[in-house]
């Protein structure tokens, strides 16, 4: 992972989900922080500048779709992986209009988050060059 730790932000209002997921990513050597909703996520991105964000679609106050829209207004390239509970969530298609790097379905194994995450970071690096 190079000399500097990669910073990941997980956004989901369900602590029972973010806790095990943070633990998993930390165990793989990432620096992980969490946010409860879209509003908190925007603040965290502006303050901590994470390298990648996992963002749930369903959240109170500001949901993932709205948060994605707003984030894209000030940060066009930040890799964001959407989290969804349903495979056939129609909002994923709508999110496509704003650009995201992948979708993680909650029912999937944690290993998938790693695959998605590494692919997203790689693409991001290529684009930077």
């Amino acid at each position: 992972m190079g000399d500097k730790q990669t910073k990941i932000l997980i956004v989901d209002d369900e602590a029972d989900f973010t806790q095990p997921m943070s633990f998993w990513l930390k165990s793989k050597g990432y620096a992980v922080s969490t946010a409860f909703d879209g509003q908190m996520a925007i603040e965290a991105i502006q303050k901590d500048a994470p390298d990648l964000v996992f963002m749930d679609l369903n959240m109170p106050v500001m949901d993932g779709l709205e948060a994605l829209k707003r984030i894209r207004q000030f940060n066009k390239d930040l890799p964001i992986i959407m989290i969804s509970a349903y495979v056939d969530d129609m909002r994923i298609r709508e999110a496509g209009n704003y650009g995201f790097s992948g979708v993680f379905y909650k029912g999937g194994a944690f290993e998938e988050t790693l695959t998605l995450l590494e692919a997203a970071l790689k693409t991001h690096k290529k684009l930077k060059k």
Partner: protein
Amino acid sequence: MDEKGLENSYLKFLTHLVTAIRKISLYPLKHPSVVSSMNAVYASLSGIITAKNSLGLNVSPGKKIIINDTEVNDKGLGAFDVLSPPLRQLDIEDITFSTGITQKEIEDFLRLVIVDQEQAKKSPDINKALLDNAIQHIKIEQFSYVKIKKDQETVVLGREGLPLDKLKSKIKDYCDGKIVKVFDVENIERELFGAAFFEFKEKKGIGVSLKNLFKRFLLRRQDQAGIMDRLKTALLDFGASGEDVEKIVKKIEEEIARKPKEKAPEARPETVAQEQKESPELKEKTEKLRRDLEAQAGLLEQLKKQNQLLLEEKGRIDNIVHHMADGMVVIGPQGNILMANPSAEALLGISKQDIGKPIKEVVKDEHLLTLVRRLPSEKEAVVEEDIELFSSSESTKKVLRTSSAVVEDHNGKTVGMVTILNDITKQRELEKIKSDFLANVSHELRTPLVAMEKSISLLITKAAGEVNPDQQQFLDITQRNLKRLSLLINDLLDLSKLEAGKMQLRPEPASIEKVINESVEGLMVWAKTKSINIEKRISEGLPELNVDSNRLIQVLNNLIGNAIKFTPAGGRITILAQHRLEHKTIEVSVEDTGIGIPPEDLPKIFSKFYQVSERAPTDISGTGIGLAISKEIVELHGGKIWAESQHSQGAKFSFTLPVTG
């Protein structure tokens, strides 16, 4: 059959024929409704043919229908307007049905004349077209087309020139005062004479329609004697024998004298004579009166047309109601059955003869009488009710869904009630299967769940050895979510009980404070994960209640659980309990600072499976039955439950429990 009987059977035949024609214009030929009306036509026709050997149907232009030389008054049936247009299309004037006719011939005939007119038109000779279609016992006579020659000038009455129809319209124009020139009038007269001559030559008689034309023409011409003289001269001119001339004139005179109503020709000349003597003012007045009368006649004609349209519309609606799959019954304010369609008759177990009788006398199943009991002055728009019909055996048990609405006249007075009856027996069966399935599945789901819960608790209590703090944390999460899952499954089980009406309470004396505390304790950990603060405000000295504590904890778990779900992190939930002395109840409320409920959703949130649109689908949503179950539990306790909310300003759910003793 005597004359009267014959006339009745003519009317009957005409009625069936008109119905059949209306139906084949609406339905395919094989439709049971068409078939049944064809049967009726055949039956009534056979009766007449047996008595008279044949049936001649003449639809003359004078809006008259003549069967076997008898004019049939159709009593508002509108027969002429149904029969005339298609027959006119094919120039048909007379139809003769004779002995040996089969039902198939009638069907084929009507198909040819009403449905497949184009085919019939293509054929040069319609009678040949009938024979081509194996219709041997129906003969058709078309309007006569004649040529007359006068003063070297040929006036053609026929397909290529001037058919009787055109002559008719000319005479109409003349009668309406549209043709006034002496020359034109004389022309019409001559054409009429010509038509009479050739019709007599071909048919050895004068047809009804032609006689009618003469009558109308004479009514206007006001010069009967003169015309008859001119007619004689003209006929002789055409080459008719003296004998024939006498016959023709006699026939026409007979027709004119036939009805006493036709006195006008004699009366008119008198008026004319007077007019000549009277002052110009009187003449003007008379003229005005005449115009008014004509205008009125026009109005009358219009009214007749409108009446006809209404009759047709009514026929169509009657047809629709008759063939509706749902039963429809109309009951008057005194409880009499005013109307019932066949489906309603079958569902209510009544027959046609029962219409008009009080429903109480004819409906055997007393459950069905709830229909009438709910009748008086209902202000609701529609009353829906499911009625289970009594039956000793399961297999014939029936459930009817009824929706009734009060029928008011234009003054707002109740004139009865219309009820739609729907057999929902099948639906009920399916609902039962679904409930049974739910109960089964819930039981099946519980088994593995219990195994997990037990195993996890062994790990958490360290009965199976030490666990490190991280492991402890994830075991806690597992246990918490297993608890949530088991609550959801319990909800499903309760739902199946609720639907089967099998939910029962086990009441015992309990303190509401204890109940609240127990529920809050169980949910505290969950609330903490979202940094939600739960505050309790319980009045002191609340009386003890006789309640099912476990069920009430379930209600509170549901209300507080919802509050936690829909309140953002850092929010607050307040639980209030107070004594409402005036209502002899204890009122418990759960108030949150969450996203609230839109006002349009408030009335529906206690129904099964309902989820506030904006919240669903989300991964924090539940099964949508928690509130329905809570409502059932509170109501089983004799209390009430309701919700208040300002959208985006939190929600407040309250319920009451009666204080007994």
